[in-house]
């Protein structure tokens, strides 16, 4: 495999691995915990390094994942006192842990290849140079780790799908039925931590946040169906990874940055053009409601005065503007639409058709 292909494969696998727990972070309104965890894993790596003095040790991985869970536990501890809100608790805990990590690095590990920049920013282009031999195959380490985490996440999701779904949408019922919501919460947070550690090595912690939150948020604008939401998130994440790589190699810019930008672009497209929830669809719907409301007003007005002596005055297009306070052009447009829809017979004196009369009666019944 060429290094370029390997980089793309790593990106796709990591994007998919991030999207799976990301869906539940978004649904459970815990997206910012991914931010906290992806920063504090640095502390775990530093502490693991001090214990082992080896940057390749698996203990670093475990230590980092454990710090992620510790972060969540500390956030719960602080917000559990009831003295600060949960968002403030997150904002208190992770900068403190991150600061400790930065100080430990600059004070005791200055001469080691362990710098804050590479943790936060990541460099996917270098991933193919760090290789492991697995079952006789010569693979990039990030690929092996990423694939392992993806499989793990998929298996856990498959096994605990029902529990996760229930605890996410109705925590109270889940607790009443005897599923332990706290267990599910910490299980999910462990998965998020492990995924963040596996991913940030290759792509940097900021892209981890982008890959965990942006594809599920995008998919959330497109569907109501949980399995579809998960599938779409994986697809959008993987697609953004590939498109981001293409953008990075064309413009010769940061790969992780390009991928994050593309996930944002995907969200923007969904935000504007999603079939039901996009801004455009919302605007179209509002416009349609405006017209249909105006037509209902018109037929009600006509029904009101139908067959009465003042009908001659009331039921002319020019009077509509005075009585319904519509601008002339708007009144004309409404009459034209109502005529097209067959509610009103055109003429100097507006009259209801049968269809228009039944619409007016329906509307007045409501």
């Amino acid at each position, binding site marked *: 495999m060429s290094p370029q292909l390997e980089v793309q494969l790593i990106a796709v696998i990591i994007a998919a691995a991030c999207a799976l727990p990301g869906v539940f972070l*978004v649904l459970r309104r815990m*997206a910012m915990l*991914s931010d906290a965890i992806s920063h504090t894993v640095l502390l775990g790596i530093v502490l693991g390094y001090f214990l082992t003095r080896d940057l390749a040790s698996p203990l670093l991985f475990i230590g980092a994942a454990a710090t992620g869970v510790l972060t969540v536990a500390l956030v719960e501890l602080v917000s559990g006192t009831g003295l600060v*809100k949960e968002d403030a608790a997150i904002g*208190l805990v992770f900068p*403190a842990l991150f600061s400790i990590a930065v*100080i430990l690095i600059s*004070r005791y590990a200055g001469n080691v290849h362990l710098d804050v920049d590479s943790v936060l920013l990541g460099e996917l282009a270098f991933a193919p140079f760090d290789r492991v031999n697995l079952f006789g195959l010569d693979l990039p380490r990030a690929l092996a780790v990423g694939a392992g985490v993806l499989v793990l996440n998929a298996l856990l999701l498959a096994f605990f799908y029902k529990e996760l779904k229930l605890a996410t949408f109705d925590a109270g019922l889940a607790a009443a039925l005897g599923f332990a919501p706290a267990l599910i919460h910490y299980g999910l947070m462990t998965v998020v931590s492990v995924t963040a550690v596996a991913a940030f090595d290759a792509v940097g912690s*900021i892209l981890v946040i982008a890959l965990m939150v942006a594809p599920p948020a995008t998919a959330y604008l497109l569907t109501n169906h949980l399995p579809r939401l998960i599938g779409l998130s994986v697809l959008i994440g993987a697609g953004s990874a590939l498109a981001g790589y293409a953008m990075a190699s064309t413009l010769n810019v940061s790969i992780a940055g390009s991928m994050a930008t593309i996930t944002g672009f995907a969200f923007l497209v969904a935000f504007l053009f999603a079939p039901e929830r996009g*801004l455009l669809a919302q605007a179209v719907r509002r416009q349609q409601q405006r017209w249909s409301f105006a037509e209902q007003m018109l037929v009600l007005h006509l029904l009101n005065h139908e067959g009465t002596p003042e009908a001659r005055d009331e039921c002319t297009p020019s009077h509509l503007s005075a009585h319904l306070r519509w601008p002339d052009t708007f009144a004309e447009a409404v009459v034209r639409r109502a005529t097209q829809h067959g509610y009103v017979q055109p003429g100097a004196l507006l009259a209801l058709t049968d269809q228009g009369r039944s619409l007016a009666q329906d509307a007045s019944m409501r």
Partner: protein
Amino acid sequence: MDRQSRQREIEVELIIALFTDYTLRTVALGVAVLGAVSGALGSFAVLRRQALLGDAMSHAALPGIVLAFMLTGQRNPLILLIGAGMAAWLGALLLLGITRTTRIKEDSGLALILAVFFGLGLVLLSLAQRSPDAAQAGLKTFLFGQAAAMVASDVWLMAGIGAGVLLILGIFWKQFKLISFDPDFAASLGVPVRRLSVLLTSLIIVAIVLGLQTVGVVLMSAMLVAPAAAARQWTNRLGLMVLLAALFGATAGVVGATISATARGLSTGPTIVLCVSAIVVVSLLFAPERGVLWNRLRGNRQFQAPEA
């Protein structure tokens, strides 16, 4: 010389250095201003449950900084600050738009804006670095903060902008108080809630942008949240809370800067954050009426009350 008197001597030296050492004095003044401004504004962010806004917006400022640098080709702090502020402001408006018009919640919106803007900033940064005269080191330190490099003109700039921000806070004090505690009531009184929210968020962004240079992107959120969260424990009055938060922020800044100036490998930003975190821990534990310890004691007393 015994250990204790040696310790004392170091302390005295530090205090003298604070008044005589030019660099330390400049840095301490700068972070004191920053701590006071972000503490005061952070009180509103914490009360309005926007504690993580600082984190997201400080990341979102990156593309603005890089773009300002690319367009003007200068590293004038004021120009970079304006770029940072514009990008963060755009991020905040987008966040507001997303949460108002879709079912995406605040937390996802924040994470989204944070990561995507930062990613865009990385892309721009890698573009900027290719131009030969670009000083990438300068931009990176801007990202992670470099308090030690502060000069007097930076402090003056910070003090000026900070004073302006606090002045606006004072002018709209009553309105900000109202929209922070009861926005519905404020709206029923005809107070323009949304415009005031945007103004308040803009002021918070100015504070964030001021702090970027000193404590860096990642740690700026602590400067907004921690002093306010600590101050909240000591009082129920908004005015006192804002004053206390400003005091805590400034104190943590000065103490942190002084400690980091004396020891090798203690970067200023993280040291300040640890100082302010220590204030938070003490406040959460020992604050009268609210603190954990106080509640324990009161719980015991209530438990014993029937016997007495």
